[in-house]
């Protein structure tokens, strides 16, 4: 069963028990919960499109491990074309859902862990790589969703894991048994966690030689004993409980972030992919972050396409579409959005082979991509809000529009172009609100800022990866401070 249907995916989610809390209460049937369901739909779309001949070329790939046709979200990139197709797939998914579709974090994690385990084994004579290959075959053959689990609670930001007053601030090994490890800690912000089948845990940051207990990488199923989940709130989330759907903005899809507590969770040895190799913590963190910084050059662009479309539509509905500054603002939005895409494609085209054989993005360009992502979606959102006018934040609720007494008056004074139904304006304004300050802004804006690392994390990488001395030498050659090595005629 290399490719699952959306129905089979929903069945997987329903046929397990997890300990999930929201608004202080335990949630039993989360798949049908109105706040959670849109996020489930986003992931289900990754299954749907893979089965559609119209999209299968970018949604599927051939596994290098099994030779089977698999969902690209479970693929190990085999060349730069694969890296490029990954970005295109993410743009497509962003366009189809207008939300975070959650499945990329796992793909980015296992591409990073695959190459890192290979290099750990080469250096330390360990057996992690083969274990990881077996895990990945299981993921591919069963078309599973994997959560890429890195960010710890992290306590005091000025202290390293071993210096924290509470050692659980970073997930760590609390016991080594004959049959495996026991771990404790908490990973925050976990995208798509309870919509996943498996969790792939990685260390959060570079570690010192005496921080071996924190240098741990492993996989457990989402319903493993000891796992506790607390659902993250999003702006305007309770609008999904109001009945009706206009005020939701995006009526089908959404994202999901979950606080994920590992309360003494057992991990059998065959699922342990790093245990104490602190010298490889930087490698796995940088590779995961690099892949995820590339990802944003696809997913945020696809969501950006929907916001540009919403801005264009609302300008049309309100009769402002012909104004030259509106046209120019739409051009500017496209320019910014396509620049992000250009970065996503560039870091993929400049990818390279790892020792394990899968392909890694160009780290410098991936960091440039993400640095732009920390800014441009905010500017695109600002322009969309400019074009939309203020009504998307002051407009009465759907219930007022439908009220038999005041509804006709609300509609009368909400009318713009008489040939455009008022409901069009209402719905489009709510979509702009959803994307720029409602629940989708979690993914489109704040995640653009902090996801895959806050802006400063990229600037540190850029500093490391750019050879400034070389550039200085180029300038000195030109102005005669040093002899130009190539002028010899």
């Amino acid at each position, binding site marked *: 069963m290399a490719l699952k249907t959306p129905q089979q995916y929903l069945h997987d989610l329903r046929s397990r028990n997890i300990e999930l809390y929201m608004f202080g209460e335990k949630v039993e049937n989360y798949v049908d919960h109105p706040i959670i369901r849109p996020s489930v739909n986003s992931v289900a779309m990754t299954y749907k499109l893979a089965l559609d001949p119209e999209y299968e070329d970018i949604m599927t790939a051939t596994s290098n491990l099994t030779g089977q046709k698999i969902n690209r979200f479970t693929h190990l990139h085999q060349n730069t074309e694969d890296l490029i197709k990954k970005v295109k797939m993410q743009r497509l998914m962003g366009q189809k859902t207008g939300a975070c579709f959650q499945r990329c974090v796992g793909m980015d994690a296992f591409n990073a862990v695959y190459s890192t385990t290979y*290099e750990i084994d080469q*250096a330390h004579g360990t057996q992690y790589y083969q274990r990881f290959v077996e895990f990945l075959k299981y993921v591919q053959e069963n078309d599973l969703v994997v959560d890429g689990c890195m960010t710890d609670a992290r306590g005091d930001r000025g202290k390293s894991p071993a210096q924290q007053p509470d050692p659980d601030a970073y997930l760590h090994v609390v016991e080594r048994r004959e049959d495996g490890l026991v771990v404790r800690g908490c990973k925050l912000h976990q995208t798509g966690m309870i919509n996943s089948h498996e969790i792939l845990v990685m260390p959060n940051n570079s570690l010192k030689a005496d921080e071996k207990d924190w240098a741990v990488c492993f996989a457990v199923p989402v319903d493993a004993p000891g796992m506790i989940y607390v659902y993250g709130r999003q702006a305007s989330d309770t609008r999904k409980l109001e009945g009706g759907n206009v005020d939701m903005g995006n009526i089908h899809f959404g994202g999901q972030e979950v606080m994920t507590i590992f309360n003494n969770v057992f991990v059998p040895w065959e699922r342990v992919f790093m245990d104490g190799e602190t010298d490889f913590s930087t490698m796995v963190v940088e590779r995961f972050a690099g892949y995820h910084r590339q990802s944003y050059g696809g997913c945020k662009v696809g969501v950006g396409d929907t916001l540009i479309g919403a801005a264009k539509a609302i300008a049309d509905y309100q009769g402002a579409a012909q104004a030259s500054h509106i046209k120019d603002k739409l051009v500017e939005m496209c320019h910014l959005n396509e620049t992000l895409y250009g970065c996503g494609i560039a870091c993929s085209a400049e990818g390279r082979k790892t020792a394990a054989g899968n392909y890694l993005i160009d780290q410098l360009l991936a960091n440039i991509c993400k640095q732009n992502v920390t800014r441009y979606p905010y500017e695109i959102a600002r322009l969309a809000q400019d074009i939309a006018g203020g009504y998307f934040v002051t407009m009465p609720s759907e219930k007022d529009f439908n009220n038999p007494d005041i509804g006709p008056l609300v509609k009368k004074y909400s009318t713009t172009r008489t040939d455009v139904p008022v409901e069009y304006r209402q719905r489009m304004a709510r979509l702009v609100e959803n994307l720029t300050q409602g629940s989708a802004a979690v993914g489109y804006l704040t995640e653009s800022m902090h996801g895959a690392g806050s802006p400063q994390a990229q600037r540190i990488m850029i500093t490391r990866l750019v050879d400034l001395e070389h550039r200085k030498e180029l300038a000195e050659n030109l102005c005669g401070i040093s002899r130009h090595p190539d002028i010899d005629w």
Partner: protein
Amino acid sequence: MRLYIKYCGGCNPVINRKKIVDEVVHKLQRRTALELVGDRADIGLIVGGCPVCCVNMDEVRPLARRLVTVGGELVNFVKVPIAQLSEIIVEQILNSFDPQWELPEADWPERENLPQALGAEGKIKHN
């Protein structure tokens, strides 16, 4: 040993390619009889200035029995300490080389039978 050296285009190097190659050649000359060639090489040394190492491998592969690739601080895809770069490249070249190739009866393999192997199996110390 017949060594073929191929540089990338050098648009954005993070290492000084020429300096590294000079060091490698110098060190190899002290350890083996070295001949620099343009074809039918024992070892092809690919010198990329950055990890992308954009040399067209399909063009280079038929020119040598084995390849050793350098891409910035990566030697055969593994990151190494920059101070030891030339030393590690020399080790990789020597590990990839089979002295049997120098016997008078050793034939240059048919081009289509050339190994696709990219570099030696030897272990590289990580940075």
